[in-house]
């Protein structure tokens, strides 16, 4: 299930603009890795290259390699659609499909590519995915109701349930709690700690306490100035990044002296 991510000298471009320069990083399976850094430093952009979501923006391209257990995601003949079912993504704002019921939301990804499943198998997948997202008890009596009727935190966990229903190897989270209140945030953070038992989790966050709470390793990204590319400055166990960073910029950022 869980796979290792190996990035080798990755450059990300939007057209001619170099957005992220020369990232080398190894992400262990069954772990939570946090990306932190100031806005515009390229951490979200880099995250999106890990499942080729950045290609949604016209003109976006990469140089370098992203290996998932040794298989290059940008290799010749690799279908981005398949990459995205292997590497799931949870977004900044909860985005359940508004016209679908809770049940259909969970099954949305699993039913793709014309896969058919029996009603019993579907029921089982809905339950296991919602349980996996700590949402089952809250919604089991209203699976037929629209997903947009849930609270923000529940919607975000529904999105996580939808992602794990596809049975990915890696789950990417792009500031998954930035639109949530503290209690919902806590529920999602608890869930992240559970998810790492089965998945490789990579999370972008602006909340440094969150990075400290949930992650094993932390990567600090920074940008030299507007128009300059973002870079990976330091990548180390989370304790080290927060308590004993090697780089001056990292220290300034995590101690709040940035800018």
């Amino acid at each position: 299930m869980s796979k290792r991510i190996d990035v080798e000298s990755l450059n990300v471009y939007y057209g001619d603009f170099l957005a992220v320069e020369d990232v080398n990083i190894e992400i262990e399976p069954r772990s939570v890795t946090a990306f932190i850094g100031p806005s515009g430093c390229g951490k979200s952009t880099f995250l999106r290259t890990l499942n080729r979501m950045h290609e949604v923006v016209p003109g976006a391209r990469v140089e370098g390699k992203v290996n998932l257990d040794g298989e290059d995601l940008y290799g010749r003949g690799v279908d981005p659609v398949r990459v995205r079912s292997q590497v799931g993504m949870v977004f900044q704002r909860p985005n359940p499909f508004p016209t679908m019921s809770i049940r259909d939301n969970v099954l949305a990804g699993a039913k793709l590519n014309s896969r058919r499943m029996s009603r019993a198998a579907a029921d089982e997948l809905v339950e296991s995915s919602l349980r996996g997202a700590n949402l089952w008890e809250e919604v089991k009596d209203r699976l037929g109701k629209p997903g947009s009727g849930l609270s923000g935190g529940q919607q975000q966990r529904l999105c996580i349930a939808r992602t794990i229903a596809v049975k990915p190897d890696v789950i990417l989270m792009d500031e998954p709690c930035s639109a949530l209140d503290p209690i919902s945030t806590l529920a999602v953070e608890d869930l992240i700690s559970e998810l790492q038992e089965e998945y490789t989790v990579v999370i972008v966050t602006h909340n440094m306490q969150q990075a400290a709470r949930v992650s094993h390793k932390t990567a600090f990204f920074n940008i030299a100035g507007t128009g300059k590319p973002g870079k990976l400055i330091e990548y180390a166990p989370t304790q080290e990044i927060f308590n004993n960073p090697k780089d001056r910029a990292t220290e300034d950022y995590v101690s709040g002296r940035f800018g």
Partner: protein
Amino acid sequence: MTQTAPTKPEMGEEPEDRPAAPGPSAGPAGSPKQDATFSGLALAASLVILVVLAGVALFLCLQAWPVVGAPADEFYGGEGFLSYIWPLVAGTLIAAAIALVIATPIGVGVALYISHYAPRRLAKPVGYVIDLLAAIPSIIFGAWGASVLAPRVVPLYDWLAQYLGFLPIFAGPASATGKTILTASVVLGIMILPIITSMSREIFQQTPVLQQEAALGLGATRWEMVRMTVFPFARAGIISSVMLGLGRALGETMAVTLVLSGGPFNPSLIQSGNQTVASEIALNFPEAYGFRMNELIAAGLVLFLITLVVNMLARLIVNRYKEFSGANS
């Protein structure tokens, strides 16, 4: 001193020191006179529209009035107003329906191509060309349909009559000139294509990016993404664009007049015959006088009512769509 931000007056409380205009005002230092002048101008402009609309409705009703209660043999055809008008209404509805059947899938498809498939460099020119299509005068479409399209579809009609002639709508022998209601409908379909395309395109482009990314992030292909997010989001918008197209098709006069060699109601679409309300009026109006004139205007009133209902339905759906998208975006 407290901020004198323009707030809504409490329920039942009279706003004393504010001009009647709603929304933020210029405040005490502004110029109430300017505001009053402009609001007066705006009011006058909107009243003119209402007056014109009411005038048209009044004209139609007054001029059509003699038709009510007139003896049946005074009508064209001699069998009363209903038997005069129903073939025309049927012809109008048939032509508009066929036009929709042709234009809807093409229009939606082109809109989707422009909004989600075409490379950017191509999307803009294609959209521009489609919009240009809307700028071509209908008489040009009519002339093209009558002189270019009609002769060229004759072999197709012959084929239809030969192999599908058992269906009443394709009963032979096919018209030798091609000037049939089917040809007119094709021309109408081309004419309403830009309406459906440009409106659908605009709505497709408004589909929340977050939703589309959610679908893609689950491993959806582009077509699956479109089916999961774009179509559900745009459904009501597509329907209202089709309704607007229908409104245009119902009222279109010149193209039908030039293309169709009209006649009494004929279930076969590939023979000459059939007529639409608008075209009937255009053809007969110049020579009409007296009661015949009242009769034609009554036909116009019927058309006015049909298009009014279609447009109101479209507005209704557009409004519902607005609420829907506001709640979920």
